[in-house]
């Protein structure tokens, strides 16, 4: 190493940065001793070195990693510490179970559909009856009072008859006998209740195409031609709803009932079961 006046600065930097070997350090010190004028320059460079500072990291404890603690807890006690969870029961759906569930679901859907149809038919009849009553200006309250006479033979006849509506000789609807005698009130003149004009026995009402259309759109005519083309002044619609008059003449409350025939339900379920069994056999 040859330090001279042209390269001394470079070695001074290395000297203050402690990048020189001991021999080189000695060479630099000898150069300063021989050339005292450069001593100030070396002192100025030494001033650029920062003094050591004591800055502490306060959160050192957060950095430590603790080794896993050895515990002497017995395995039995450890097991007791675990949270006990409820057992899970796995249900396996085989074909039979699936068929049973599907049949129950189908039955439920059928029940809902039947209920919907029943409600809608009753409500349509109610609408027709209400419209007709309004059109004819009937006095429902008076009619009700008259019909509440349970000994009246006309009312008894109404509740025991079964009506059949035919179109072109084919039965399109069987009307069950009315349970509630008030069902007969709507289309009848209350002032002169003519029992002779009310059919006593099971009777079939035949409808012309026009009548059927009128029936289907729930606008029942005041006069429907009977089988013998005889004009009738009153029409009876057996229903399964109850009419409750309000204080207002134009308003009535209809309470419908749903009857489920147990035998019919069993028949439906048998048919569904047979259907699934059939499918199962087809799969095989």
């Amino acid at each position, binding site marked *: 190493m040859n330090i001279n006046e042209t390269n001394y600065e470079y070695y001074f930097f290395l000297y203050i940065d402690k990048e020189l070997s001991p021999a080189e350090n000695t060479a630099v010190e000898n150069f300063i001793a021989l050339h005292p004028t450069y001593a100030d320059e070396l002192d100025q460079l030494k001033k650029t070195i920062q003094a050591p500072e004591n*800055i502490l990291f306060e959160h050192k404890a957060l950095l430590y990693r603790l080794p896993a603690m050895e515990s002497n807890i017995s395995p039995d006690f450890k097991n007791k510490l675990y949270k006990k969870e409820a057992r899970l029961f796995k249900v396996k759906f085989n074909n039979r179970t699936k068929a049973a569930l599907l049949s129950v679901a189908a039955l439920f859907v059928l029940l809902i559909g039947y209920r919907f149809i029943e409600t809608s038919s009753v409500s349509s009849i109610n609408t027709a009856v209400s419209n007709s009553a309004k059109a004819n200006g009937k006095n429902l309250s008076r009619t009700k009072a008259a019909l509440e006479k349970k000994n009246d033979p006309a009312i008894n006849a109404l509740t025991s008859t079964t009506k059949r509506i035919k179109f072109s000789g084919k039965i399109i609807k069987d009307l069950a006998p009315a349970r509630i005698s008030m069902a007969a009130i709507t289309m009848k003149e209350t002032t002169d209740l003519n029992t002779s004009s009310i059919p006593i026995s099971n009777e079939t009402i035949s409808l012309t195409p026009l009548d059927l259309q009128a029936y289907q759109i729930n606008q029942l005519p005041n006069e429907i031609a009977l089988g013998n083309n005889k004009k009738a002044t009153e029409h009876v619609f057996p229903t399964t709803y109850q009419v409750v008059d309000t204080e207002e003449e134009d308003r009535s409350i209809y309470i419908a009932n749903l009857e489920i025939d147990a035998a019919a339900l069993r028949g439906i379920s048998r048919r569904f079961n047979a259907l699934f069994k059939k499918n199962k056999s087809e799969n095989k």
Partner: protein
Amino acid sequence: MREIEFNQCVDECANSVYRFILKNIGQVEDAQDIVQTAFEKLWVNRDKVEPLKAKSYLFTVAYHQMIDHIRKEKKLSIKDNYEEAVIKATYQKDPELKQLLLAAINELNPTQKSLVLLKDYEGYSYLEIGEIMNLSESQVKVYLHRARIFLKEKLVHLEKVAS
């Protein structure tokens, strides 16, 4: 690296890494976050890092975290609370010279400042500083010498102004 070696590394390096970062960015909370992140990375990579090189690894990670922080925050200038935090925690034979030197260092660019801090505080060699800062040894030497010249001239100028 096991837990014991890692904890020894915490004892030996946490203060120096924190000081290095704090001196550079001047914000206590951010410096603490960076130190914590550096040690977290060391723990994650403890199987890859040799215990003897853990300190260098910590400084490397902390330095790059700091650069990201500076770029993100765009805080290239030292804030006021920096000097307060540093002055409280330092001891200096010549307080006036310390103040002047701090003022001069604050005018260095981040790379030169890091170079000076790593050299003066931690005593790293040019080669080690180059590894930490992704610089060659000659680059470290040149940048550091430029920084020394700048500091020397600045100190002379400030001393003249002060006197």
